[in-house]
């Protein structure tokens, strides 16, 4: 049981990085970016290919980061310069990346059984696989949260936040919103790819299918984090995303433990996200019910 929980927590922390990437596009830029389905696999593919080629595992993650940023840049150009709707731009990049990722790996599944990973130094200290992943995940997430908290407080970060909120206003203040959107997409997909690279190293393989449905997992984590730990302030928002990603994994681990077939997992996630997205409507409905009942006395 303990192993299931630590496994879920470690996975959650690695996916938290992806969740933060999704948050940047979905909440900050106000764009549902499907590129992530391809860029998470791309991160895994780049990291896996690099590792099998004997590249340092940390460097492999950095390479993954750049690969993901490139994917984000591609979507950004499709959307801002060629004026293709954001959703469609993301889908186009996602589809394109399927082929690109196959090219990178040269096969649909790349094993990393014998490769060196970022977790090994911690395993050498006597931690088991899950705990090593938790430590690495915590370190990465902490660094990331600190950097993003700083970045979104800077002048550039502020206009990116404002872009998702009101692009008219941002242009009226002399800022090129095409640029801020592209920066956001690049950053987001870079982080998603890092997440993919870390996941591949943790599970010791990269698979061409591993990104399928990842956007829904990311959204589920974002929403769980917001619903359970919704606070004002950017720092607490970032932390709530991490907690959301972990809790999502713990929930999944439990429903699997309770006997739900693994094949139904994506259906379960999709339904969960649909319900979570509809929560504001339910809340509103409950409030009007309350109001009308209170109006009697």
């Amino acid at each position, binding site marked *: 049981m303990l192993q299931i929980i630590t496994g879920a927590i470690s996975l959650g922390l690695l996916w938290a990085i992806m969740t933060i990437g999704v948050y940047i596009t979905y909440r900050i830029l106000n764009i549902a970016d499907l590129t992530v389905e391809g860029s998470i696999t791309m991160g895994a593919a780049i990291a896996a290919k690099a590792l099998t080629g004997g590249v340092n595992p940390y460097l492999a993650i950095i390479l993954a980061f750049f690969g993901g940023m490139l994917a984000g840049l591609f979507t950004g150009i499709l959307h801002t310069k060629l004026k293709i709707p954001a959703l469609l731009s993301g889908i186009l990049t996602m589809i394109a990346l399927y082929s690109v990722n196959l090219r990178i790996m040269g096969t649909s599944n790349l094993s990393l059984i014998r490769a060196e990973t970022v977790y090994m130094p911690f395993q050498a200290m006597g931690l088991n696989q899950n705990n090593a992943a938790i430590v690495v995940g915590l370190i990465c997430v902490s660094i990331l949260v600190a950097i993003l908290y700083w970045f979104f407080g800077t002048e550039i970060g*502020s206009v990116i936040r404002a872009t998702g909120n009101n692009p008219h206003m941002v242009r009226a203040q002399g800022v090129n919103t095409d640029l801020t959107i592209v920066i956001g997409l690049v950053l987001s997909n870079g982080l998603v790819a890092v997440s993919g690279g870390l996941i591949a190293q943790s599970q010791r393989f990269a698979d061409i299918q591993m990104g399928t449905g990842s956007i829904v997992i990311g959204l589920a984590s974002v929403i769980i984090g917001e619903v359970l730990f919704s606070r004002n302030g950017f720092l607490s928002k970032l932390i709530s995303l991490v907690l959301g990603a972990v809790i999502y994994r713990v929930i999944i681990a439990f429903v699997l433990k309770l006997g739900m077939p693994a094949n139904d997992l994506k259906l379960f996630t999709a339904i969960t996200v649909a319900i979570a997205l509809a929560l504001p409507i339910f809340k509103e409905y409950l409030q009007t019910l309350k109001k009308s009942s209170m109006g009697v006395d």
Partner: protein
Amino acid sequence: MLIVNGLYKTFNSGTCNQKEALINTSIHVRQGDFISIIGGNGAGKSTLLNCIAGVYPIDRGSIVIENTDVTNLPEHKRATVLGRVFQDPMMGTASNMGIEENLALAYRRGKKRGLSWGISNKERSLYKEQLKTLGLGLEERMTTKVGLLSNGQRQALTLLMATLKKPKLLLLDEHTAALDPKTAKKVLEITDQIIKEHNLTAMMVTHNMRDAIKHGNRLIMMHEGQIILDINGEDKKKLTVEALLDRFGKVSGEEFANDRALLS
């Protein structure tokens, strides 16, 4: 200051909804002019302002601001010398962000934005001072999210943002039309005060004849995409609603048919 020459703008060109919004429109705005622009629905008032601001590309003509031809410059580049307030109070501010954050965004208009902190303590005291001049008590609510403010407060804030960095030209696009009469009056007072204080050049679109007559040193009336009246100086000061309607009838050969302008 601003020279608009032979502007043409057609929307939905080549479809059944084709609309010639501006037809050979020219105007020369002098330094220090405060022009109120009036006209019926679809006269081209807002289109003119939006073309100057670069929101729409124009079909023909040229726009020159202080000897710089901005005709082909994108909206965000022109914004460095323009201050803008919109009809929709939601348009001018970022609702998820605080009052001071919005002001900080506006304070950096025309400057290169880098990786230094988005707002400094020194600025905060400046914003506080500036907010006090609005007389709305916003200086006590610096970190309040703008989404929680009333429409009037948001328009006043937008006005402050538009003029925090002194613009070469202030464009007010029916910025009081969405407000109740009392709030509209207050925002117009603030507008007058800010324009006078900073000695700004401004163009203000309005539906309200009385406001158009009361404010500014120059009045322009538009009709079907053209400027049909341009009243200045002493003539402007002596203007009444009746005289304006009369002159409109003579120039356009039509009755001024716009309930909103007459009743308000």
